[in-house]
């Protein structure tokens, strides 16, 4: 099939950038979206034109590298998938496809569809870990964890840090990402030791990076390839409330913010 691509081309960080029309011929319905771009790029290289730059790595939907807004939807319209798992069979011959990079002040565009997402790494560095050596994998059930908590923690840990939540949010807020990274620890006994410090540091870093804040549009959960629910943000808010209380009233304060 033949497609007309409207691709964001931007030479460098300082370039203004513009949408360019690129015709994609000989697109097979079996291709993934990234394979389609590979074929288009082969064509462009043969013609001596700079190929379309885009991020990609595992191409099996788990690394969180691929990042493009396709026809106005981060990762494309297929629910719960990354761009690499979006297949061309979901498009029709003659379609016009708009391909744009993640757009947020905290994600500067480096080239074409490649953005700098190290702001998310800096948020992780601020507190997205536990600061003791955990050694090898412990024996099963050595630390008893209620099944419900284990499940919720795993749901949060599914986040691959792709940044689609930021791209989709009308406010370019990273709160779904931070909520997932805070919650994956907050539900587990190993993570609870530093819970207040963690949420406090990660939220402060998130604010410092220039992300917006949540106004409950729920666009993030609609595009999240790992289908992390926006109610996870309520969990982060609970954690933050707890941290605020502890910072204000000291260690001895009784917790009222809930577990």
């Amino acid at each position, binding site marked *: 099939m033949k497609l007309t691509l409207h691709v964001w081309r931007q030479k460098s960080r300082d370039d203004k950038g513009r949408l360019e029309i690129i015709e994609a011929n000989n697109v097979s319905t079996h291709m993934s979206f990234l394979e389609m771009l590979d074929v288009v790029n082969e064509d462009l290289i043969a013609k001596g034109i700079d190929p379309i730059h885009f991020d990609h790595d595992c191409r099996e939907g788990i690394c969180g590298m691929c990042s493009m807004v396709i026809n106005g939807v981060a990762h494309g319209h297929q629910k719960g998938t990354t761009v690499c798992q979006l297949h061309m069979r979901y498009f029709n011959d003659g379609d016009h496809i708009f391909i744009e990079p993640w757009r947020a002040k905290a994600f500067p565009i480096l080239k074409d569809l490649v953005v700098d997402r190290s702001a998310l790494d800096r948020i992780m*560095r601020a507190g997205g870990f536990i600061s003791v050596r955990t050694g090898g994998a412990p024996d099963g059930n050595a630390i008893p964890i209620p099944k419900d908590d284990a499940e919720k923690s795993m749901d949060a840990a599914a986040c691959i840090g792709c940044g689609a939540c930021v791209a989709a949010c*009308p406010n370019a807020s990273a709160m779904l990402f931070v909520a997932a990274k805070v919650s994956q620890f907050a539900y587990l006994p190993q993570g609870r030791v530093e819970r207040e410090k963690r949420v406090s540091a990660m*939220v402060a870093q998130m604010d410092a990076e220039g992300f917006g804040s949540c106004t*409950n549009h729920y666009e993030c959960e609609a595009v999240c390839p790992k289908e992390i629910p926006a*109610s996870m943000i309520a969990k982060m808010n609970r954690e933050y409330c707890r941290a*605020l209380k502890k910072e204000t009233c000291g260690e001895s304060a009784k917790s009222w913010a809930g577990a």
Partner: protein
Amino acid sequence: MNNTAVARARSFPLVLVTSSIAKKFVMALTGFVAFGYVVGHMIGNLQIFIGQNQINAYAKALHSMGPLLWLVRGFLIVCIVLHIWLGAQLRIENWVARPDGYARKKSLKTGLPARTMIWTGALIFAFVIYHILQFTVRSTDPRFEELFDTLGRHDVYSMVILGFQNIWISGFYIVAVGLLCFHLSHGIWSMFQSLGWNNKRSERWLQGFAWIFASVMFLGYISIPIAVLGGFLKLPGGVAL
């Protein structure tokens, strides 16, 4: 975990206007106060259907609270100022966070109320100013000051009817209350989410509850101008037009 971001001084009152999530807490709490007022105000207003004596007595009782009335008013004003100030600040920050928009952007879940909170908020504020000038300060209509019932109380009943007999004032009021309830249809459930009182199961209930509550309030509020325009609420004998 001792990085610079944590080390930044975050003393209690200041954090409420500097941290994004703390600001959301303040938005939710002040919004809750305003919401509580709006519910109470509607219940107060609906007493007009019981009759002239009831609503005038209610108004008299409120005004006889003296300093307590001003304490409540002061608290409300502080909450509203904080709500507007932080709401505007968050809105500007969120615009700044996305300097360049998309050529194509599809909304998948969000609705019009969520996307227009700042505008409905601004219009509600403009309406509140007019509403206070009309019925509290009573500076928009010279007749309002001279209305007294047979017991010598200020005749709120006749004042409301006289005010709403003007179709433009009624129309403006209905539109403004509509915007208020539109604002609340997003705000009522959002405050639970912002304060962390939400999970996957409660979400649908909270959103449904918000819509129903906002709709009921809309109907409650507009029933008064509609009853006046429809001739159901009439001026008592002895009040000259």
